[in-house]
């Protein structure tokens, strides 16, 4: 007797949202809409992260990735007029390659049958970042500052 599992429904909806958004990023004609669908992919992924037991990572993904990076792409793309580009005539070959890669990964990943029973503790993660990964944290902070400087330079530069 199958019981109704609301988590399974949330998983199916969020994974469908992610996959459809990814497909639309690649196949949609307008590059602005493609950038918008990237933000939907980020939201779908954040829901999946929460279901895996990483709600803080999901919030960080929404704030930094969707809120900053994707919005930066979206606003930059609005400045660019999409010029026609001759696409390489390798679509069938690329489709076969991508399908084979995806099927191989699914085959490899099908061995992992465990259920995630993990909930990330905010205190543990923060302590780990500060004590063990402090150097990487500084590098990441500097990298984010460079993004800010790039954005300001883009806004001011006159060629």
């Amino acid at each position: 007797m199958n019981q109704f599992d609301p988590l399974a429904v949330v998983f199916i909806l969020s994974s469908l949202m992610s996959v459809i958004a990814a497909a639309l990023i690649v196949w949609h004609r307008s590059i602005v809409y493609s950038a918008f669908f990237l933000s939907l992919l980020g939201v779908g992924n954040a829901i999946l992260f929460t279901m895996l037991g990483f709600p803080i990572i999901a919030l960080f993904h929404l704030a930094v990735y969707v809120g900053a990076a994707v919005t930066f792409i979206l606003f930059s793309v609005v400045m660019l007029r999409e010029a026609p580009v001759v696409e390489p005539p390798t679509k069938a070959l690329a489709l076969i390659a991508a399908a084979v890669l995806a099927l191989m990964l699914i085959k490899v990943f099908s061995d992992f049958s465990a259920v995630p029973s993990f909930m990330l503790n905010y205190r543990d993660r923060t302590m780990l970042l500060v004590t063990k990964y402090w150097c990487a944290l500084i590098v990441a902070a500097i990298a984010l500052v460079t993004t800010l400087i790039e954005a300001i330079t883009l806004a001011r530069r006159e060629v």
Partner: protein
Amino acid sequence: MEVSWYLAVSAVLFGIGIYGLLTRRNMIRMLLSAEIIFNAALLAFLSLASLDAGYGPVGGAIVVIAISLSAAEVGVIVSIAVMMFRMRKALDVYELRKFRG
């Protein structure tokens, strides 16, 4: 839900991203496809990290740093694309060859 389902979603996202990367020459579209692959990698990484309580905090810390670096990488590539568009009025990656010093 078993972890294999999350990993399957990640594999599908990876395949779509690879297809987009192989079939496009527009720099922004290639960046968006690379971002799909990045999202697939994050999902796979966190799925595998959630299998063991010992790996969880380490996986979370690495993903936080990866997301920050990805945001910076997006800034760099979009800056190059905007500069290229201003100078060449095109976003074709084949045009990048002409920027060689």
